């Protein structure tokens, strides 16, 4: 399959007339399967590479024509790669469909909004898009984000090396015909100097509910800060961490190679936090088992009976249920079901499942209904 998701009918209702919409929103992506190393604590691992084409203005200062040229060149290069490719032009993409991509972490909210270019005019007409692969979603290439090219590679569990390999391959494939902006001393040049050098950002999504219960979470977060890591919520920059999900990322990109940065995360910092969380879980199970079981089962009870749920409450419930599943306190819910719901309860997923936009009140009811349905039996999802 090779689809071009460019919208032909103007920015109207987000319906299911594009096959990729129903295909994406009905599935739990590969990187949220709950498999892979240390999956009890680590949901997913991500590597992002920022690249720019040589001799052209970075996106914020690019003209419409420059951006158009970048789109054409990068998409043409990616066209030669793999089957099941899904190439989406975000110009005029209906709102809900675009949000679906944001909720699935295939694109950033900024790319959807199209406000990277500083030139005046209709931001929605800025040439920008994403290329991903259906039936996988572990790889996505954003075009004309703050940098011309942003390669993102995701893996389930704690598996940064595999994510880096895959990002590295697609990077080589793009560079096979396109020249990157590269400086002898500074490496890959990026619109923001904080990304210059490797242009690489390594992130892991951690689930730290036991540290939250024992009150040691702040200490773990401070330790991460001290080790120059950025700590964010599930949906990235500026988001709350409902459900006790935290994203840890390196901030340094210059003076250390990709391998060195990866080692710092993979061998030193993250394993310590994983062990800290596991130790807290063991302690809770040994000394406060009833308290833990009570919290987890109350969450499951609410998920199985609530009639109205806000997005934040849903995430909190899912966080506790997830803890119950990995500790085998809950034995009739599968991990992919919980992970799938973390996406499915988000606004665009809910709206598209209902064939159009939902008002906030209706959405809360739809969210609760979905939660009840999926939590009914093992493996449903």
């Amino acid at each position, binding site marked *: 399959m090779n689809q071009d998701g460019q919208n032909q009918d103007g920015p109207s209702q987000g319906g299911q007339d594009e096959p990729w919409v129903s295909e994406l929103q009905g599935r739990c992506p590969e990187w949220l399967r709950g498999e892979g190393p240390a999956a009890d604590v680590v949901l997913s691992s991500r590597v992002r590479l920022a690249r*720019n084409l*040589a*001799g*052209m*203005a*970075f996106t*914020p*200062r690019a003209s419409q024509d420059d951006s158009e040229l970048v789109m054409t060149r990068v998409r043409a290069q990616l066209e030669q790669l793999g089957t099941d490719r899904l190439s989406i032009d975000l110009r005029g993409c209906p709102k809900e469909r675009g949000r679906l991509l944001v909720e699935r972490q295939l694109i950033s909210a900024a790319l959807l909004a199209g406000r990277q270019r*500083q030139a005046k005019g209709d931001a929605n007409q800025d040439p920008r898009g994403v290329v991903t692969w259906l039936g996988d979603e572990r790889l996505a290439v954003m075009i004309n984000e*703050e940098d011309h090219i942003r390669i993102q590679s995701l893996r389930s569990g704690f598996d*940064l*090396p*595999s994510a*880096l*390999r895959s990002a*590295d391959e697609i*990077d*080589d494939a793009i*560079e*096979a015909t396109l*020249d*990157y*902006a*590269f*400086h*002898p*001393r*500074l*490496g*890959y*040049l990026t*619109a*923001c*100097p*904080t990304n*210059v*050098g*490797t242009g*690489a950002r390594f992130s892991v999504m951690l689930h730290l509910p036991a540290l939250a219960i024992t009150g040691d979470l702040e200490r773990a977060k401070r330790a991460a800060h001290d080790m*120059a890591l950025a700590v964010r919520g599930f949906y990235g920059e500026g988001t709350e961490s409902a459900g006790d999900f935290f994203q840890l990322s390196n*901030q*340094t*990109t*210059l*003076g*250390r*190679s*990709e*391998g*060195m940065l*990866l*080692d*710092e995360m993979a*061998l*030193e910092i993250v394993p310590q936090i994983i062990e800290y969380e596991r130790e807290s879980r063991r302690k809770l199970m040994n000394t406060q088992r009833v308290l833990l079981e009570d919290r987890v089962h109350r969450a499951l009870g609410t998920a199985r009976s609530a009639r109205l749920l806000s997005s934040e409450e849903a995430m909190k419930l899912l966080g506790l249920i997830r803890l119950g599943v990995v500790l085998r306190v809950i034995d009739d819910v599968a991990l992919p079901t919980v992970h799938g719901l973390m996406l499915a309860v988000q606004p665009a997923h809910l709206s598209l499942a209902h064939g159009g936009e939902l008002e906030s009140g209706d959405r809360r009811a739809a969210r609760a209904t979905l939660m009840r349905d999926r939590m009914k039996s093992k493996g449903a999802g």
Partner: protein
Amino acid sequence: MSDVPDKCAHCTKDKVFHDLKVLPDNTVVEKHACEDCAAEQGFVPLQVGVPAKPTSEKAGTTARACPECGLTFAQFKRVGRLGCPACYEAFERQLTGILDRSQEGGTHHVGKIPRRLLRERTSGTGEPGESLETLLGGAKHRAERLKALGEQLRKAVEQEQYEQAARIRDQIRTASQLAGGGSSADEPGAKA
């Protein structure tokens, strides 16, 4: 300094600075404005806090716009994004502090090098006139890169981070090969 007025040209404040603005066609206009008005109108303060002496030398170094895209450093400070690859050279001096703070003292890239370019330039099959040096830098850059890696190795050993030290040692080996014009296609960043 009789030619510098003592009032801001835009408001009534009497603390006046000598400011410059670079127009899209790269011409420079001079204004005398207070710090607030200068920032608001995208002027580059020649020397914040000190009434300026309008010497052309200073004007040249501080208010220079990127020759490729016309971005001024004041504009960069406002938006936090550079305009094009050439901005890194144009604002090299001003960016040093920013990079130092955000990159934990990292000054030299020691990671992946675009593989096709490296291959072409080591084998001489690329565009004529594009030497390996334009990709990796001259001897000075390479020596500095090795020095920075050596410093990292020392720290890693000091802190008993032996796996990290081994990784840095590999990096030094690769950097040394490249510095000597070796044709290692097994370049940094390839390992995972």
